[in-house]
């Protein structure tokens, strides 16, 4: 007789599946925001568990800065082919061409902030009423108070003072026209939980998560992948380093860490012993202590 007991990964998985099914049940036009990072890849796996053998009741949406790691895009396209679900791509370049976003200049120029414009436009164009994201509460202080169902106004804004009480596991997805809800099924997971889950489920990841040799420059004390998207000058010295990436974002703002973690077990060990939190490798959070909170209020994921 096969009997199941819930270990902590099962518990987290069951909760996430429950949340995904609530989205399917409560909204007319939901979408799953897919970045190509391990958290959204985990969401795709959870969606398979929630809805198979049926189709996903939502498309995947990728907000493409155009400054991607080539490995991420290759991974994305292969994955979409495997799961046979719909992918909608919102291009930051289109927002720039339409004059809705202005390319930053200078050494630290990045398209990271411009993603918000494209995201909001993509939501409006497709009339999405719920966007599923892979954010976790352990990532950052401001996220620690975010609800599982987080209501945004038509400007995409999050108002931390006007959050709905979220009781038991009853999620209130009622909204007015023009508003939408960001839903975070893996809110209660930590970075290590995600990695342990990926190992358990044998989920394939983009290769940049694993140690490899790459040309890098050192910028503000962090290792950045040398690329045409990064504004470099004579002061920047390119060196080949053994690195991997702990998050997958825009090439201009995702720092690498020196690493010899070639296998998933190495990564789990590396993270278990690591003394730097995941977002510590994100330059976009370093700007000010309240950086994340400000971006969230402005409609960031």
């Amino acid at each position, binding site marked *: 007789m096969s009997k199941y007991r819930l270990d902590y990964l099962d518990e987290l998985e069951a909760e996430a599946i429950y949340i995904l099914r609530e989205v399917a049940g409560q909204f007319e036009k939901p979408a799953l925001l897919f970045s190509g990072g391990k958290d959204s890849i985990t969401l795709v796996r959870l969606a398979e568990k929630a809805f198979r053998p049926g189709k996903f009741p939502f498309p995947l949406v990728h907000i493409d800065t155009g400054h991607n790691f080539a490995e991420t895009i290759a991974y994305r396209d292969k994955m979409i082919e495997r799961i046979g679900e719909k992918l909608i791509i919102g291009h930051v370049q289109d927002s720039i061409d339409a004059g809705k976003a202005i390319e930053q200049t200078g050494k630290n120029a990045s398209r990271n902030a411009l993603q918000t414009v494209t995201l909001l436009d993509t939501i409006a164009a497709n009339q999405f009423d719920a966007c599923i994201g892979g954010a976790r509460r352990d990532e950052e202080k401001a996220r620690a108070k975010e609800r599982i169902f987080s209501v945004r106004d038509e400007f995409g804004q999050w108002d931390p003072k006007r959050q709905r009480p979220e009781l038991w596991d009853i999620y209130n997805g009622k909204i007015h026209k023009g508003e939408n809800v960001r839903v975070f099924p893996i809110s*209660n997971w930590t970075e290590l939980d995600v990695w342990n889950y990926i190992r358990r489920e044998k989920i394939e990841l983009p290769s940049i998560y694993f140690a490899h040799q790459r040309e890098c420059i050192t910028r503000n004390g962090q290792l950045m992948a040398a690329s045409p998207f990064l504004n470099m000058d004579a002061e920047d010295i390119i060196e080949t380093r053994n690195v991997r990436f702990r998050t997958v974002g825009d090439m201009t703002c995702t720092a690498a860490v020196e690493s010899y973690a070639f296998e998933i077990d190495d990564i789990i060990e590396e993270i278990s012993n690591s*003394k730097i939190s995941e977002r510590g490798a994100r330059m976009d959070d370093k700007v000010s202590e309240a950086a994340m909170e400000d971006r969230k209020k402005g409609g960031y994921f």
Partner: protein
Amino acid sequence: MKEKKHIPNPSQEGIRHHIEMDILKFITAGSVDDGKSTLIGRLLYDSEAILADQLEALHASNRKNDDGSIDLAILTDGLKAEREQGITIDVAYKYFETDKRKFIIADAPGHIQYTRNMVTGASNAGLAIILIDARKGVVEQTTRHSFLVSLLQIPQVVVCINKMDMVDYSEDVFNRIVADYKKLAAKVNINNVTFIPVSALKGDNIVYPSINMGWYLGDSLLSHLENVSIKIDDTSAHARLPVQWVVRPQTDELHDYRGYAGRVSSGAFRVGDSVTVLPSGFSSVISKLEIFDKHPQEVLAGMSVTVHLQDNIDISRGDIIVNSAGRPQLSNLIEADLCWMDTRPLDTTLTYLVQHNTKTVRCKIQEILYKVNINTLEKDYDEDFQLNDIGRIVIKTAEPLAFDPYQLNKANGGAIIIDSRTNVTVGALMLRQSVD
């Protein structure tokens, strides 16, 4: 990590009512003055749950204790507005783990104006830590916090008597407060209380056993949290599955596939069980259970599953599948405890929405029976139901709800009220019984 007393879990094989959870969610009740944030900060700091860059930010902060040591309370502060005002205004979630268990802390503010936040945090908690200032003993807010813990039916309670360093680590002070608290616990119907004397500021009995209180022989707080047993009810009599989604691929090869997807909210289902679908009342037998690619013979509370029935009956989201031998109450006139959570007062003439499990229907609060003064526990017959008020009401719903009394089955006894004008969640309901 550090050395800890290891209490092995006895084998659970064959014991049907003792399934251990591996994640413990707990709430801390207390106010800034009781050192609540310091206690959480100490728990995180001493259990080495703080990473280097967060620690760096902590040391770089300008906020220090009077003696110049780092103010650990900063670790639980979240939002800018809160930092400016120096208070916690919302529920913040913190995560840490030890070798034995994973923990989620719901850090809720303790002042009376934030009662709704505490109710929110308490709704999901498996354990509550109630903080008492050793210098002050059992005070009004202790009564309030204990009442809420009891109302929300948090199964385990730990009373931390804090600031023991300020009372010379006195055993007499501790014993006096324990005796006082036991009287209160009896009054509000709380069982299972563990008392721990601590100093969050100095670190006594939080993670490490105190060297200042040799008279205390119990566990440190962390050790208790690691070993406390949190059980779930997995009897088939209470088997409940609110249907969230019907999986119907409608492809050629899966033409007849029809699976009812949902999370078992309580109890256990087995293949072959006779089940009833409510509110329709149709019965059938479970033909297959699925968890993605697995086909277990039995599924338990907490699991997200897909159920197949022998008969083709009309089931949709909002229905609940229950064991035929243990049916919930089915009623559209229900007595309930209510916590009001909106700045607009309750309006008994207005139609609201009630969301119970996956079902949302119109409702009215037909009658306010009484309110409770949660500081004194006295009943109040004032009919004005404002933000943070708690009391007993009768709710009338447009369609019957299939519920269990909250005291017997939390998972199927809680519901929320939504104001259909604003779509905001305005009330928490603990359903009690059908009114004839």
